[in-house]
Structures are given as C-alpha cells and as structure tokens.
C-alpha cells in the first residue's frame, strides 16, 4: 500500500542549530500534513500542503512540498528547547477518509 518514508528517525542538535526532516513517497501525493508530538503528549496538527512546490512558514518553521508532489520537508531555523518532540508527516489518502503517517523524526536538543 501507499506509505511515506520519513528520515531521519532521530536527530539531536545543539540549541540554536537548524533541523530538517524529510518525507518521501514513491507515488504522487494529493496533499500532505505535518504534526508535532511533544514527549508524553498527543500529535498536534501543524500544517497542510496541497500545491506543487508550495512553501509555507510558521515563525521559525518552513514547510515545503516538492514540485513532483512526492516529497516534503520541515525545516526549523535556530532550534529552541520548545521544539523538542517527534515530527510526523502524514499522507492524505483521497477518498479514503484517513491518513497514513510516516514513522516520525524524534528531535532532541542540547541546551
């Protein structure tokens, strides 16, 4: 079945360094969503990307959707300790009323 591959699985950075997680699919994605899960918490929706080549920003977070709509990335500039958590991408399955989540990238930060 369809699935999105997310890399890296883990990332440890020094506070202030940048961080990027990537989501890749072998098939064209209709759209993609990003979620953040804080340690011990539940996933919280961040953003949805729909258009080819789309770039959206939320403060220090930049989300991109590839031109071919087969990959997406989340980049955090100058990480802060509040960015700690696991970031998931999720593929929207058109007409199926469900999402397929990537395995997530767990971000830890050294203050």
């Amino acid at each position: 079945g369809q699935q999105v591959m997310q890399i890296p699985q883990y990332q440890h950075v020094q506070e202030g360094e940048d961080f990027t997680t990537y989501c890749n699919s072998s098939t064209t994605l209709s759209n993609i969503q990003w979620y953040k899960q804080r340690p011990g918490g539940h996933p919280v929706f961040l953003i949805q990307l729909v258009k080819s080549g789309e770039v959206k920003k939320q403060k220090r977070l930049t989300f991109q959707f590839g031109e071919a709509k087969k990959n997406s990335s989340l980049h955090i500039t100058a990480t802060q300790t509040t960015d700690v958590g696991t970031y998931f991408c999720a593929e929207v399955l058109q007409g199926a009323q469900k999402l397929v989540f990537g395995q997530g990238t767990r971000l830890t930060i050294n203050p």
Partner: protein
Amino acid sequence: SQTIHQWPATLVQPVGSPLSLECTVEGTSNPNLYWYRQAAGRGLQLLFYSVGIGQISSEVPQNLSASRPQDRQFILSSKKLLLSDSGFYLCAWSRTTSTDTQYFGPGTRLTVL
C-alpha cells in the same frame, strides 16, 4: 469549540483480561473517528476508523475490536489482552472530508503485564 475526551488516561491490565477504552467528541456532528496505537518511541499505527454510527473499518487484524454506538462515541475493546497490546492508544476525529485535519485526544497509556 470542539473537544475530544479519552479515558482512562492510564491503565495497567493483566494478560488475558478484557479491555474497554472510550473516546467521546463534543461540539461537532457526524465526525470521522479514528483509533491509533503507538508503541514506545514508534510511529502511529491506524487500528480502526469510522465514518458513521455502526460503520467500522479495520486496518490491522488483531485481537482488538471497535464500536461506535453513538455519533460521537468510539470504543476500543478486547476480550483477552496480550502483552503486545501495550502501548499508547490515541483517538482522533476529523470532519467528514478526507483532507481535513485530525484532532487527537490525550491518549490512554496501556500496560499489559
């Protein structure tokens, strides 16, 4: 505004015992409802989803079952728990469009001993 509740928050159960986890949504009608399981440090595995009362789609064969007796109530059950059923169980809802955001409940942390 919409809210989603799950209970209990934590649960410790012996192997072979039954299970019932409940999820309710307030402030919306006819939501899509979802049950996920997350093993420690792992991703989200979709277990069941429902687009309406009595309509349940199972994603993974297992000893769990789900029911939706009311529009905004989703129940996850098992007759006999296995050690491998331990995990973090998350309920989520979305509006009835496939592209809509999913809103997650606080989760139930289940330990089977």
